């Protein structure tokens, strides 16, 4: 039920209705931007952004830096672990 899928905002669909086309692995659907828009955000500014889509609504802009950080942490952990493994083997 809480299924959310990352998609890229590729074009405004209906500016009045606040809808945009989002592409998810080659599939396009028009979704509502209502949760992403406030007084300071223009719909156009969202084009090119990745968003999390849930039941036809863009619910959140995905923060690519944070994603990177998470993965980096995992990779560092892996490196660390391998290092430690190495120590253990050698030690």
């Amino acid at each position, binding site marked *: *039920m*809480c299924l959310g899928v990352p998609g890229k905002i590729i074009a405004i669909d209906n500016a009045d209705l606040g809808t945009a086309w989002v592409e998810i692995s080659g599939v396009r659907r028009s979704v*509502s931007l209502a949760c992403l828009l406030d007084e300071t955000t223009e719909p156009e500014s969202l084009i090119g952004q990745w968003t999390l889509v849930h039941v036809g609504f863009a619910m*959140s802009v995905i923060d690519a830096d944070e994603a990177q950080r998470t993965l980096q942490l995992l990779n560092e952990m892996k490196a660390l672990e391998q290092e430690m493994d190495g120590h253990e083997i050698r030690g």
Partner: protein
Amino acid sequence: MKFVDEFRDPELAEHLLQRIKVLLNTAPLANRESVRVMEVCGGHTHTIFKYGLDRLLPSRLELIHGPGCPVCVLPRDAIDTAIEIALQPKVILASFGDALRVPGTRMSLLQARAAGADVRTVYSPMDALALAKQHPDHSVVFFAIGFETTIPATALTMLQAERENVENFTMLARHISIIPTLKALLDDPELENDGFIGPGHVSMVIGTEPYEFVAQAYGKPLVVSGFEPLDLLQSLQMVLEQLACGTSVIENQYARVVRKQGNAQAQQAISTLFEPRASDYWQGLGEVAGSGLQFRPEYSHFDAEQHFLCDASKPSDIVEQGCCDQVLKGALQPQACPLFGRVCTPSQPVSALMVSSEGACAARYLYRSGEHRDVG
């Protein structure tokens, strides 16, 4: 797929699994017979079984499948009410597909459709609104269920209908709030868990702050998690790290999507349309104070129940047969229910836990049934 495939990387998973094993074998956890972590959200339950994480994780780490599947907690009388409305002439009931197989007291919405009700599956509440515009001579009712992830979509669709003056569109709302539910669970003496995996997409809306009481008042760690296997493994690792250190704080593994304050527009939409109700009954959970939502008086014309004058005072003479309440609280594993796989199967579910693939019973049955039963 970007933001998906990276988080399904087998090698990183392997390392996380290693780290989890190490943590479980580290004092103070090493001495304990088992460590119990509850994933609150059905989406996580689904990921666990879909990727076979349950078989990869050490058996001493016991995963408890929590109540966070809105389909699984739908009370039978909600289904009855939906059917009662759907069977009226000139009514189209639009619903997410997940709700169609949930048994009511006499039948499911699928069976009602076979018996003549006009029930349509939609992907989005906006698609239900589109149905209303396509069928001006019908009354279209959207069966609105879900936690805070979904409530903004419901509310924004309704506000859109209001703006467009679509008058043949109402909602049968059975939304449920996460925080009161979590509180009730924590207050339940039957619940025995050491920490929580917090729901990623609910938190995307409400933020991470509302969980503080879990750590502060109940002393249990909670890590808000994404839905890919790496997300979940990392979150489990983070919970275990806290347990290992004896700390209990709220952490956010899913920072790429979840902000501390959540989504202001989404919160705004919810509170414009809805207000909490004193108490509601949920399947498996019983009465939970403040867990349900009702339309604010100024939006009561959206309320399908008022519109169709459903008899809300129906006696609830339901004798529950299975162990759903205990499974939901983690007191029992699904396969321990005597009905599991025999009387209760996904094609003939006794209860909603066996319906949605996010329900603990259905997930277990669909992905691991070969180990338990003969094939019918």
